[in-house]
């Protein structure tokens, strides 16, 4: 059964969309990731135009972050002040990101830039996850327990404009979180991702936030960033497809819950190793499209296709 997507202007099998949303939701629920970094490239693979994939993916992340943030909020695990500071950089970054996206679309380089960015992102995530999970598996076999540092003192503590973040029990400069927010905002606007897999390690290692507060806070700020990206795309690139968004949102929230339940029953590191391999395969696929000569070196697009 096909469904005609009004903004993407193509008709596509609805079950393909539902299973795509379900699988991405499942993976995101299982690993606690937003899933945007898989959603956007997979949407492009199945033939959704790049601009629609990015804009709609951002909208879908709003739903999955709200769904995830509520639980953390109820347990008091959201540092609102830190979220707000990250957001102040993030808003600026997302505006820059969407403008950058629009500019690249107009000069015809958006597909190539998106591919390069996704390749770099997926390849590094995949490699890091594979290294990390294989270490854990190795330690498990050797029956070693790993001690983690609780607090990192680094350059983030020596910059001016220091302020107190009570929830996170931190006294650091506002400059690093603003910069982190800004960078994530650009990536969000350009790639249609929430950026939690960059944000979470950055908050732990650069800002020294307690791990328990990191996920809730990142989800909290991702809601707002992806909401702004959604609005900016709706008004700048006119590429937000509400029909596609609703299908993906419903299938991914259900998938996410199944993922959470499954994750509790299985060993994390084994699954992370598996996900790492999936992510690397997607990365290689994207790279192949960039490096292998296309069947037809010519391609066309409609001018001012936003209107």
């Amino acid at each position: 059964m096909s469904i005609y997507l009004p903004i993407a202007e193509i008709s596509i099998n609805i079950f393909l969309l539902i299973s795509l949303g379900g699988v991405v939701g499942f993976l995101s629920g299982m690993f606690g990731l937003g899933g945007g970094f898989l959603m956007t490239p997979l949407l492009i693979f199945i033939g959704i135009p790049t601009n629609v994939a990015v804009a709609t993916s951002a909208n879908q992340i709003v739903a999955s972050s709200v769904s995830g943030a509520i639980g953390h909020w109820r347990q008091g695990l959201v540092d609102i002040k830190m979220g707000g500071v990250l957001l102040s950089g993030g808003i600026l970054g997302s505006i820059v990101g969407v403008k950058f996206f629009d500019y690249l679309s107009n000069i015809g380089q958006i597909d190539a830039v998106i591919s390069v960015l996704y390749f770099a992102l997926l390849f590094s995530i995949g490699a890091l996850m594979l290294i990390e999970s294989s270490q854990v598996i190795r330690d498990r076999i050797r029956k070693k327990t790993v001690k983690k540092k609780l607090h990192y003192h680094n350059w983030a503590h020596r910059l001016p404009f220091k302020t107190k973040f009570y929830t996170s029990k931190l006294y650091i400069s506002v400059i690093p979180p603003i910069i982190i927010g800004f960078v994530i905002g650009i990536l969000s606007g350009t790639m249609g991702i929430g950026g939690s897999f960059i944000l979470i390690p950055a908050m732990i290692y650069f800002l020294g936030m307690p791990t328990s507060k990191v996920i809730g806070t990142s989800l909290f700020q991702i809601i707002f960033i992806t909401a702004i990206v959604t609005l900016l795309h709706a008004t700048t690139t006119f590429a937000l497809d509400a029909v596609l968004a609703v299908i993906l949102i419903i299938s991914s929230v259900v998938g996410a819950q199944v993922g959470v339940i499954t994750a509790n029953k299985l060993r994390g590191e084994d699954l992370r190793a598996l996900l790492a391999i999936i992510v690397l395969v997607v990365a290689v696929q994207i790279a192949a499209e960039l490096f292998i000569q296309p069947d037809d070196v010519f391609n066309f697009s409609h001018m001012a296709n936003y209107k």
Partner: protein
Amino acid sequence: MNLKSIIIIVTVYLSLILNSNSLVIGSDENEILIDANFSGKDLLVFGAFYADPSQPREKKGDILIEVVGPKEDIVLRKKESFLGFWLNAKSVKFRDVPSFYYLSSTSKLKDSFFEKNSIGLLETDQLPEVNWSLITTEWGTVSSDEEKQEFYEALVRNKTYENVFKQTSEEIEILDGNLFKTNIPIPNTVPVGTYDVNLYLILNNKISKDYSYKFKVRRIGIESIIFNFANSFPLLYGFTSLVIALIIGWISADLFRRFRKA
């Protein structure tokens, strides 16, 4: 066969009796509607033509059907290898290109015929290969004739690949010598707008009769509402889509929390 078709055929025969060398069209529909289930459609064109029945088949004349979609502006880009990356390098803008073009005839017609009557977009045996007189091009950095030709060919090739350009001499079916029928495949990627259908009766390599009509492709139902909403009130549309996301996210968190507690 339904009543409509019978009436049309009777009309066709009546007018054939009154005229020699005539062409009458009965079209199945003058509107194609795009809704949520739209996955392309076959446009049925049928009618009757009359030429001297005592003549052999090839002297009776040919039918030519041309369908021209609304005009659009296109950027055609060429990828070139740059440090191993295949990136879009040169680009050419084509303005007023038909978004859909279909040409079908009962037998293969000579290029000289197309040229003389300025019909056709896809003539392939001669230079210039395409009837570009109605299309404006902005060449940008492309200067050599050879490269221009390459771009022309690529446009036709890409459009053909997307099933929006087609030239054929095999798809018109002739029934009992005077009636003809064809199904023109309209893919699901066609844009909305007005399409022209031009039919010609060709005798001795000349147009003996012609007939034109239009049909419309338009969105209906929820697809049309969403499309218009997104383009007329983008901010409100964005907000609506956001609110839907927030509500679904919120409800799902709540629902599954209760579900897990139970």
